């Protein structure tokens, strides 16, 4: 007999009456307080002898359980034999009762908590009542003992507050969707898997399973092959067609006679199978394997997402400096890209607007910016078109590089063609400028070919893909010597170009800080 502590009885209080849910459902609270009155009244009456005031029970749950088991003994013998006289569903109900009685016996044989016993008696009672009340045509030899059993268990039970029952943890508990049209099988699977800490969701049909899968994240699907309505094979097919669900491992369950279809299901993407009646240990092992597989797939998915994030990062970082083609190339072949710092043979192009400083001094700032943006926007398009990488805009000056991060094998040719295209585009830009009341501009372009260091240069907080080296400075010096509308190519560039160029007279420049004279050629045209 459980001890009863009157101190825990809560008396009705004003605060409880004011609770909004009680105002919504006043009848509920009325029932509760009436029951409480009865309870406290009964408590007063029996404070001498220790009898539970509500249940009037005097025997202990274990004694009661033994009484029930004794009564059920002949019935258990019948339930253990051939039940073919009743329909399949009733057979299952009878088996459930049979099993519940076995459980009650097993629990009683150990040192049970009252809570466990009362729960087991409750289950026996539930099955007995269901069979007694809801089953049509239960034969007399079953109906009579079951009715007796139902009334033997239908005594008011008392129950103490349940201790929290610990759940045995599986190594990796998961969420399992068990799909089976037979309630008995669903129960069995739920019971077996819940025991090891898995969370089991059940579905009684293929339709229901597909519905559950829409809303729930499931680690493994246990899928019965033979079901009315949408069968297991069709559920599997729909699952594998769905990109979100495709990765969820599926274990097919079927009878031995359906082996051909099981093989077809495995070919259609099922991960594993179990034959009915299945071995519980095998079930646990296959579920564990399925969960493990799902965990791997989830990790793979995370890894893929990480890659996608990296890709977005690369696009965001390089998109401003590189043409889309080159960004695409880098993404497809990232191992070819050394961002840490790499010596590269490149053709460097530097251009500026002649006399821009004095132009800008005579214009309002908004017009300077408008003019510059029109110019730089058009030039950027052209540079990208020829596969150049923009290193920097310095006011009106553009520093671009051909051959990094990826060489095309004809970087010098591309640079020359790009310079010619930029100069040609000026006509159009100047036309637009004139129409807007802005001055026409002239540009000068220098080209130089040599080895530079390419890489992500800067501090941790601010870095960009850029270039350093002597050749960068040389290009700048050449550009200083170019006159308006001139494209000056260093002899290194001329040597690197594969196609034919129309060149002007060569000049030797004595540039500041550079010892030997620089040989340069004005570029007038190009033919590949």
């Amino acid at each position, binding site marked *: 007999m459980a001890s009863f502590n009157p101190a825990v009885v809560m008396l009705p209080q004003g605060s*409880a009456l004011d609770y909004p849910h009680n105002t919504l459902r006043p009848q509920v609270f009325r029932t*509760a307080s009436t029951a409480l009155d009865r309870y406290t009244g009964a408590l007063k009456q029996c404070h001498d002898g220790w009898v539970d005031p509500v249940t009037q029970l005097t025997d202990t749950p274990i004694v009661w359980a033994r009484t029930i088991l004794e009564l059920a003994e002949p019935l258990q013998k019948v339930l253990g034999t051939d039940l073919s006289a009743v329909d399949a569903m009733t057979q299952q109900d009878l088996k459930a009762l049979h099993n519940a009685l076995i459980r009650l016996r097993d629990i009683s044989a150990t040192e049970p908590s009252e809570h466990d016993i009362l729960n087991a*008696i*409750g289950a026996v009672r539930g*099955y007995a009542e269901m069979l007694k009340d809801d089953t049509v045509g239960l034969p007399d030899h079953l109906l009579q003992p079951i009715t007796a059993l139902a009334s033997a268990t239908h005594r008011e039970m008392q129950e103490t507050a349940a201790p929290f029952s610990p759940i045995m943890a599986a190594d990796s508990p998961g969420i399992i969707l068990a799909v089976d049209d037979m309630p008995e099988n669903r*129960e069995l699977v*739920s019971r077996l898997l819940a025991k090891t800490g898995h969370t089991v969701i059940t579905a009684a049909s293929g339709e229901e399973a597909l519905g559950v899968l829409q809303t729930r994240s499931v680690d493994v699907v246990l899928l019965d092959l033979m079901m009315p309505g949408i069968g297991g094979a069709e559920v599997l097919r729909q699952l594998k067609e769905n990109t979100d669900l495709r990765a969820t491992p599926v274990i097919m369950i079927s009878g031995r006679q359906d082996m051909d279809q099981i093989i077809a299901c495995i070919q259609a993407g099922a991960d594993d199978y179990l034959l009915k009646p299945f071995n519980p240990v095998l079930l646990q092992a296959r579920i564990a394997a399925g969960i493990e597989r799902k965990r791997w797939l989830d990790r793979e998915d995370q890894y893929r997402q990480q890659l996608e994030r990296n890709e977005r990062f690369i696009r965001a970082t390089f998109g401003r400096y590189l043409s889309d083609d080159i960004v695409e190339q880098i993404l497809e072949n990232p191992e070819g890209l050394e961002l840490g710092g790499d010596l590269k043979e490149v053709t460097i192009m530097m251009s500026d607007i002649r006399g821009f400083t004095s132009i800008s001094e005579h214009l309002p700032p908004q017009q300077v910016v408008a003019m510059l943006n029109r110019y730089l926007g058009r030039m950027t398009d052209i540079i990208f078109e020829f596969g150049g990488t923009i290193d920097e805009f310095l006011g009106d000056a553009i520093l671009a590089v051909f051959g990094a991060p990826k060489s095309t094998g004809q970087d010098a040719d591309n640079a020359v063609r790009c310079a010619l295209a930029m100069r040609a585009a000026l006509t159009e830009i100047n036309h637009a400028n004139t129409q807007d009341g802005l001055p026409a501009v002239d540009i000068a372009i220098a080209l130089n070919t040599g080895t530079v260091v390419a890489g992500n240069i800067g501090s941790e907080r601010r870095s960009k893909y850029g270039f350093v080296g002597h050749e960068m400075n040389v290009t700048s010096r050449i550009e200083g010597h170019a006159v308006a509308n001139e494209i000056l190519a260093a002899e290194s560039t001329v040597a690197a170009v594969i196609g034919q160029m129309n060149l002007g007279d060569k000049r030797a420049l004595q540039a500041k800080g550079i010892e030997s004279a620089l040989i340069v050629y004005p570029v007038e045209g190009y033919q590949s």
Partner: protein
Amino acid sequence: MNTQPIRVLLVEDNELNRDMLSRRLTRAGFNVLTAIDGEEALILMRKVRPDVVLLDMNLPIKDGWTTAKEARLDPALQNLPIIALTAHAMESDRLQAIEAGCNDYATKPIDFPDLLQKIEEAVL
């Protein structure tokens, strides 16, 4: 007329009772989902949106009272009917269940016809 079966979320940690009630409810024509603890129950309430919840109070991980209170704090679950399943002798359990926001309660061992009526009332 709505012919969709009523979806019941049965939250009960005791497997014998859970199996039995789930079976009886299924046989009575309900669509039964089960959960073992309060955490799992809240996840299912949010994701599956059952028509009614049968919530045992003595649950592991997160007990029924806490679960009901948390459900009431979630705007999406505020009106979800919750029927508490309480131990018979514990009158205080029942009152606390109502205070925690449950709409109704049924005492264990469950009187099945009574429970059916309560479910029907709750989902009307």
